[in-house]
């Protein structure tokens, strides 16, 4: 047979690796992001949270990772768009009647839509907090006279989460995230070739309980907590 | 014209080896310029095409399906025999040879069958090397099982899908050569004529089934591997598209047809359920390893199978044939089932079925073991009948399955037309009057991998100076015109009845008068009826659509037109053979116990029929069968 070389990321499977690797990296990011933001629940007037945000914006390594993170989100999105376009082209004439309910999960068939909702959310989310934090007029304060001028992002968050539309946006988006991860987490492993009868249940379990339930639920709890507080 | 079987000199066990060592060769530089046409992509065709291409010949392969992988070899379930003696039960090449000769009721050629047994072992090696996933033992070595008509375990198998796996092996070898451009593949093409120039086969006319265009193809030699003609009966276990057209056109171009009346009726098929039935489904003979066949002792017993107590059951095979029991050869098992049903002991709604019961085996081995062995067959049965065979006995009835008859070939597998070869089920050789289970796969692959690629050299070596003949040669034009005329004639009948209507009629007549039991009176009657159906067909068939497009009705019509002629030849052959042997059971020739009575003094020959023109009686040629190594005895499985 002819030897075929090169073009890993031009190949269909290469694209899948990329989707899987970027997706699983973003899953990891979600865990870290959640861990940090859980400090919003601390009843200390925002001190822990504001100190944490200061650290996140001033550590050069973290800064590097976060820019890498943005890039990966962007590439995940671009790869997703290309994939959808490619897949649509693979079936130019659609079926008249389609019944896929028995053969696949709803999430798995709607990753593009779910991803789009998450992307819209991300834009708003970044505008509200990341943009404010970097370029906005966030009041500063000091803790324990340590001489550091902390930006009071906590107050910004508190204000944002006081609006109903904003809370609703968050909750809906977290549902989208839940379904996106319900398929995405497992799918990532499958794409990377990690499929073994002994571990499949574990991957599915973690994907479902940790990534499709726990993480989105905790993220959604934040705006609700502030709104109801 | 006299028949020369070209059997090599020497002792039986050395014939093939000696012959191979002396056969003329074609040197590699010349092979590059020699083109071979292979019609059919089943086990025989795909393996021959791949092997020829590997040797350096330029090969063109034709199949009517959309891919060579779909040929009906794929449906073979049970297994493939080989004299490996891995089971250490005393098997040997001679024993396989002997079993096959005996199983065929002494109506096959010793030299051919011995060669088959010799190469059987290499087939298994070849298939394993290709990645065929045969069943294995825990030690990683190959597993064997036993099959009907023999007392050793020499059958290699891949679950109930051995044919599929072997065919995919051959298909992959063929695909490799297609990828290398050594083979040119023509899917959805049907061969409709052989082109002969100066008495030699030099090409074919094929119809592109999608565009309807007729194409001319040249080959220095033409190999037919187009399968059997069981679909003459309409209902058979053959695929819907399996047909006799290639072989029939060859017959009409001068290739003799050998033993056309030898058809195999397989005992374990799912019974007919109604008039709508389009085909019959076989369930592997391997089921008889653990299943017990019975009918009620009482005629027309209305009770369900499970409700009939043990002592009211007649395990008629075990009763009649204690030595082989349920594992008697196919012809015997089939006839015994017919005998019981005709006598009024049949079961099921149609009363044309017997029970195949696994309750003993399930009790003895457990449901899991039975499921592991036959799970896919049980599922298939349940899908078709809606009944669960783990809980109630299966109903089975014999069905047309294989045709031992076919184009007459010599030791080189060449027909009576020079340069025209026939391999696999398409030829008449090796199985005599009855084929043993798991031997069809063996023969198809033996012919394709190990015999034809070598023997064809005897012809091609004389042809190295023959340049490719341009297809504007008058012989091609004439052949194409003949095909075109037949198509036009069919399209212009513009009658009122469908092709299937006539095909079903033909099938019924053939089954009734030339099926499991035959007699002179019925055969004569059937002969007349076939002629009538043929006339009616040509007066009243209706083919909608056009000939220059994908037209399945036209495809069927072309095939049925040939069946309507072939059916008559089968009857003529059955009438000629005044004896009972193997699958050919003439009711006039049986002993008091209902066993077949052979007539070795008069009929130890191959009946090879020569076409003499439309509406003219064919001429019978006899190839005397000489047995030097086995003694002819009455086949006994008691």
């Amino acid at each position, binding site marked *: *047979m*002819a*030897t075929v*070389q090169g073009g890993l990321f031009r*190949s269909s499977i290469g694209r899948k*690796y990329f989707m899987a690797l970027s997706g699983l990296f973003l899953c990891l990011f979600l865990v870290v992001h959640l861990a940090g933001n859980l400090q919003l629940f601390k009843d200390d007037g925002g001190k822990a949270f504001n100190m944490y945000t200061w650290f996140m914006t001033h550590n050069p390594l973290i800064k590097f990772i976060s820019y890498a993170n943005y890039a990966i989100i962007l590439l995940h999105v671009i790869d997703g768009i290309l994939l959808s376009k*490619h897949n649509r*082209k*693979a*079936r130019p004439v659609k*079926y*008249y*009647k*389609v019944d*896929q309910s028995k*053969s696949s*999960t709803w999430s798995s068939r709607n*990753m593009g839509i779910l991803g789009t909702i998450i992307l819209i959310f991300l834009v708003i989310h970044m505008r509200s907090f990341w943009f404010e934090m970097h370029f906005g007029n966030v009041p500063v304060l000091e803790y324990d006279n340590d001489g550091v001028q902390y930006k009071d992002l906590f107050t910004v968050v508190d204000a944002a989460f006081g609006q109903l539309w904003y809370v609703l946006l968050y909750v809906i988006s977290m549902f989208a995230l839940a379904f996106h991860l319900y*398929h995405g987490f497992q799918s990532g492993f*499958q*794409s*990377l*070739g990690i499929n073994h*009868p002994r571990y499949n249940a574990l991957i599915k379990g973690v994907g479902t309980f940790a990534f499709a339930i726990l993480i989105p639920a905790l993220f959604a709890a934040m705006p609700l907590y502030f709104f109801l507080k | 014209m006299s028949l020369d079987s070209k059997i090599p000199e020497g002792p039986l066990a050395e014939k093939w080896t000696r012959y191979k060592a002396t056969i003329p060769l074609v040197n590699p530089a010349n092979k590059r310029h020699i083109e071979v046409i292979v019609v059919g992509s089943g086990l025989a065709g795909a393996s021959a095409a*791949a092997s020829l291409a*590997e040797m350096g010949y330029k090969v063109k392969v034709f199949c009517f*399906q*959309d*891919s060579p*992988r*779909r040929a009906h070899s*794929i*449906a073979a379930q049970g297994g493939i025999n080989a004299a490996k003696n891995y089971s250490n039960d005393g098997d040997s090449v001679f024993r396989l040879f002997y079993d096959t000769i005996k199983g065929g009721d002494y109506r096959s050629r010793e030299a051919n069958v011995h060669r088959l047994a010799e190469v059987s072992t290499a087939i298994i*090696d*070849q*298939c394993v*090397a290709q*990645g065929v*996933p*045969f069943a*294995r033992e825990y030690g990683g070595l190959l597993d064997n099982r036993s099959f009907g008509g023999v007392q050793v375990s020499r059958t290699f198998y891949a679950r109930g899908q051995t044919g*599929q796996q072997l065919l995919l092996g051959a298909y*992959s070898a063929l695909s*490799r050569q297609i*990828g290398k451009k050594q083979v040119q593949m023509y*899917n959805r093409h049907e061969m409709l004529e052989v082109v002969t120039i100066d008495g030699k086969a030099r090409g074919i006319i094929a119809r592109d089934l999608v565009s309807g265009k007729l194409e001319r193809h040249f080959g220095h030699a033409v190999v037919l591997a187009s399968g059997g003609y069981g679909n003459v009966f309409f209902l058979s276990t053959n695929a819907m598209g399996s047909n006799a057209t290639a072989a029939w056109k060859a017959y009409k171009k001068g290739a003799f047809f050998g033993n056309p009346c030898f058809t195999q009726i397989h005992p374990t098929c799912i019974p007919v*359920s109604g008039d*709508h039935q*389009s*085909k019959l*489904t076989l369930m592997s003979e391997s089921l008889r390893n653990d299943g017990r066949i019975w009918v009620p002792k009482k005629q027309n017993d209305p009770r369900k199978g499970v409700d009939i107590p043990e002592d009211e059951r007649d395990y008629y095979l075990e009763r009649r044939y204690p030595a082989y029991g349920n594992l008697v050869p196919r012809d015997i098992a089939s006839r015994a089932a017919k005998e019981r049903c005709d006598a009024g002991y049949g079961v099921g709604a149609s009363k044309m079925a017997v029970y195949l019961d696994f309750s003993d085996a399930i009790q003895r081995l457990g449901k899991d073991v039975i499921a592991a062995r036959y799970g896919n067959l049980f599922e298939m049965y349940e*899908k078709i*009948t*809606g009944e669960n065979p783990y809980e109630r006995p299966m109903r089975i009835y014999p069905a047309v399955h294989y045709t031992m008859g076919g184009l007459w070939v010599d030791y080189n597998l060449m027909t009576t037309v020079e340069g025209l070869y026939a391999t696999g089920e398409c030829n008449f050789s090796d199985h005599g009057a009855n084929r043993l289970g798991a031997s069809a796969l063996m023969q198809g692959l033996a012919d394709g*991998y190990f015999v034809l690629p070598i023997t064809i050299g005897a012809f091609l070596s004389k042809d190295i100076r023959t340049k490719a003949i341009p297809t504007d040669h008058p012989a091609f034009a004439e052949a194409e015109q003949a095909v075109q005329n037949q198509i036009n004639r069919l399209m212009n009948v513009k009658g009122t009845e*469908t092709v299937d209507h006539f095909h079903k009629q033909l099938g019924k007549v053939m089954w009734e008068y030339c099926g499991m039991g035959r007699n002179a009176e019925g055969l004569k009657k059937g002969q007349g009826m076939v002629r009538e159906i043929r006339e009616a067909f040509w007066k009243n068939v209706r*083919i*909608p659509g056009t000939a220059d*497009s*994908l037209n399945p009705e036209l495809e069927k019509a072309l095939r049925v037109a040939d069946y309507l002629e072939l059916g008559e030849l089968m009857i003529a052959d059955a009438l000629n053979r005044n004896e009972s042997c193997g699958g050919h059971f003439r009711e006039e020739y049986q002993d008091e116990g209902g066993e077949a009575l052979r007539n070795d003094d008069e009929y130890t020959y191959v009946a090879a029929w020569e076409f003499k023109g439309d509406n003219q009686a064919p001429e019978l040629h006899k190839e005397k069968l000489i047995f030097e190594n086995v003694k002819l005895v009455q086949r006994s499985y008691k």
Partner: protein
Amino acid sequence: MKINLKVWRQANTQSKGDFKDYTVNEVSEDMSFLEMFDVLNEELVRKGEEPVAFDHDCREGICGMCSMYINGRAHGPEQGTTTCQLHMRHFKDGETVVVEPWRAQAFPVLKDLVVDRSAFDRIIQSGGFISVNTGNAVDANSLPVPKHNAELSFDAAACIGCGACVAACKNASAMLFVSAKVSQLALLPQGQPERYNRVQAMVHQMDLEGFGNCTNTGACEAECPKEISISNIARMNRDFMVAKIAE
């Protein structure tokens, strides 16, 4: 019983097709789905209309030729069943059944319900084999294969190449088909020498044929009449990665 059919009719690849409605009376529940089409076609021929063209051959679920998309599902509603093995007892009297051809860029419609699946053949031709010439083989038992691997290899080899995986996949991806062959050979010792070259060659050809990409919905596995597992796709992904990293 009576069945209403909504069937895709298309004269040839170039022409535009459309649905046509038919009613088949006197359908027996013992009929296979294709036998019901036989009855319909007989009626059409008698009326002088062109019968519906559809692919079929063995009618026992093994050749892989039949290929109907029935009521929104490849090979219809039954699990692990080809169209030819689907029986009418699974439908209700008076039911309307929509029948369409496989839909994929790589499977152009030839006529009515007949599509061209030669893309699959070309993928096999690109590397779906073990390069062994006739006569090259060693004794079969000199290559022991662990039973477990032989079984897994068989599970993959059971593929009948019908294309239901492509038809069922929302992306018209052929990965289940390709991975079945890659896996069958990767699991056997005989397949090792060409293992990594094979996976690259076959994936490359698959991409050239215009199939969609896999998004792991698992629909292929669920609709495959031979129930081939998507663990084969994972194996192919793995082998492909190894091949690309190691090359």
